[in-house]
C-alpha cells in the first residue's frame, strides 16, 4: 500500500532523510518514532505530497506521489486522513460544523453529510458535544474532533503526526485507543511520535528513525532511542 524506495530529501545542503526504504501493508498500525528533527514529519510531508523527495520514489496505492502534479494531489489526499499535534480546527465553528466543512470541501453529497458527520462524532465519543464550539472543548476533545474529521471521508490511511503532544496522560491514552479502534475497523494507521511509553505499550510495528535514517524496523517493536 505504502512504499518508500531509497528516498532522500535535502533542504539546501542539509539532508534530513537519507536513503530510506520501507513498506506498509494495508490495515497495519505503524509507529514512526524518533527524536525531534529525526525526519518523521518530513516522511509524512513526502507521503502526503507536500514535499517532493530529492531522490527515490514514494508510492501510495496506485499513486507515485513524487511524480504527482499539484492539481493531482487533492485526489491523493482524499484517500488520507491527517491529524496534527496542534489540531488545526476552525475555532469559530462547532465540532459538527468542522466535520461538515471537511466533507463539503471534499465534495461529498449533501444527503451523506449529516448522517456521516454524526456517525464519526459518535465514533470518537463526542455525540453529546456536536454543538460545542471548538473553544469550549478540552485538548483531548479537540483532538477527537480532528480524528473525526480525518475519518469522515473514509480514508485508506490515518496519518497522525504527534497527535498526543499537547495532551495529558489520560487524554493521550484516549486518543491512542481511538486510533487502535480505527485500525481495528480496517484503516491503516501511521503514528509519528516520540512518546516512549505509548510505543512500548502498543506492541505494534515500530520504525525507528535517527539522523534521517531508519535504524530499526521491527514487528512489536520497542522505543529504542534515549
Amino acid at each position, binding site marked *: 500500500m505504502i512504499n518508500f524506495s531509497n528516498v532522500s530529501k535535502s533542504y539546501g545542503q542539509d539532508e534530513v532523510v537519507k536513503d530510506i526504504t520501507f513498506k506498509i501493508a494495508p490495515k497495519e498500525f505503524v509507529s514512526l518514532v524518533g527524536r525531534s528533527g529525526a525526519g518523521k514529519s518530513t516522511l509524512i510531508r513526502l507521503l502526503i505530497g507536500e514535499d517532493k523527495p530529492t531522490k527515490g520514489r514514494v508510492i501510495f496505492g496506485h499513486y507515485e506521489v513524487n511524480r504527482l502534479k*499539484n492539481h493531482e494531489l487533492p485526489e491523493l*489526499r482524499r484517500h488520507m486522513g491527517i491529524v496534527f499535534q496542534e489540531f*488545526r480546527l476552525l475555532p469559530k465553528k462547532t465540532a459538527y460544523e468542522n466535520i461538515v466543512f471537511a466533507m463539503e*470541501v*471534499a*465534495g461529498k453529497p*449533501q444527503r451523506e453529510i449529516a448522517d456521516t458527520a454524526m456517525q464519526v462524532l459518535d465514533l470518537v465519543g463526542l455525540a453529546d458535544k456536536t454543538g460545542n464550539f471548538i473553544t469550549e472543548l478540552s485538548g483531548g476533545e479537540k483532538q477527537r474532533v480532528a480524528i473525526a474529521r480525518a475519518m469522515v471521508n473514509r480514508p485508506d490511511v490515518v496519518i497522525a503526526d504527534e497527535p498526543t503532544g499537547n495532551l495529558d496522560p489520560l487524554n493521550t491514552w484516549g486518543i491512542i485507543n481511538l486510533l487502535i479502534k480505527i485500525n481495528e475497523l480496517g484503516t491503516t494507521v501511521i503514528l509519528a511520535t516520540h512518546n516512549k511509553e505509548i510505543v512500548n505499550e502498543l506492541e505494534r510495528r515500530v520504525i525507528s528513525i535517527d539522523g534521517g535514517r531508519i535504524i530499526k524496523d521491527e514487528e512489536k517493536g520497542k522505543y529504542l532511542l534515549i
Partner: protein
Amino acid sequence: MVTNLYRILKYGFQIFGRNSLASIATVSIMVFSAALFLALMLLGTVGKVAVETLKDKIDINVSFYENAPEDDILKLKESLSTLVEVKSVDYTSKDEALELFKKRHEADPVIIQALSEIDKNPLSASISIKAEDPSEYSAIAAYLNSGSFENIIDKVSYNQAQNQMLIDRLATLIRKVKIGWMLLTILLTVMTVIVSFITILLVIYNTKDEINIMRLVGASNAFIRGPYIFVGILYGLISAVIAFIVVSFLVWLAAPQLLLFVPGMNLWAYLLSRFFGLFGLTTLFGVAIGSISSSIVIKRYLVG
C-alpha cells in the same frame, strides 16, 4: 457540480462578510474606476455629438441674381447633388425666402411695414450646401467659382479657415480631454488592481486555517480558488452597480445644462437608450478587474 458551485458561492459570501472592512475599502476604490470607465464612454459620445453638431452648422450658402432663371438654379442644384463630396443641397426659392423672412420678423411691425411698401420681392433665391466632411468645402467652393455659373451666382458665402479652425479646436480639445480621462482611468484601474491584490491577500491570510483544512481533506484547487475568485467578482459587480447609479444620477443632473452647450445631445436619454449596453460594459469592466486581480493573487499565493 451544482452542489460544489453552491458551496463555492456560500463560502465566497462568508469570506466577503467576514472581511467586511477590507471589502468596503476595495469596493470603494473600484467604484471610482468603474465610474471613470463609464464616464469615459459617455464622454466619447458627447465629444462625437459635439463635433457632429458643429459640423452640421457649417454650410456653403449660394445666393443668386434676382433675374437668375429658376430652371438654371435647379440644374445647378441637381449637378451639386451628384458630387460625392456633397451631403445635401437645400433650395430656397425667392417666395420661400420672403415667407421665411416675414415669419422671422413677424414680431417687428416696422420691418413688416417696410416690406409691404416695396412692390416686389427684394430677396433672392439661394441654395445651402452641406458637405460630407468639412475638409471638402473648399472643393465645392472651387466648383461653384469655376466660372460655369457666374451668370446666375451672385455670392458664395463660405469661410473655410474659420470653420475649419473651430472644428479642429473642438476636436483637439475633446481628444485631449479623452486622453487625460483615459490615463486617469488606467491609473485608477492599476491602483484598484493593487488594492484588490492586497485585499485578497489579507482575506487569504485571514482564512488560512480554512485553506489548510481544504488542502488536507483533498479539496480540489478549483474549489479552493473558487470562493476567492467569486469574492473578486462580487467586488466588481457591486462596484459596477454603485458606479452606474452614481454616474446616472450625475448625468440626470447635468443633462439639461449639457443640452445648452451641445444641442442634440440629451445625455440622459442616450444613457437610457443604451442602458443595457453601458451597464453591461461597466459590469464587465468591474468583474474583469475583480476576477483577474483575485485570480493572479490566488495563483501566486494560494495553490501555485
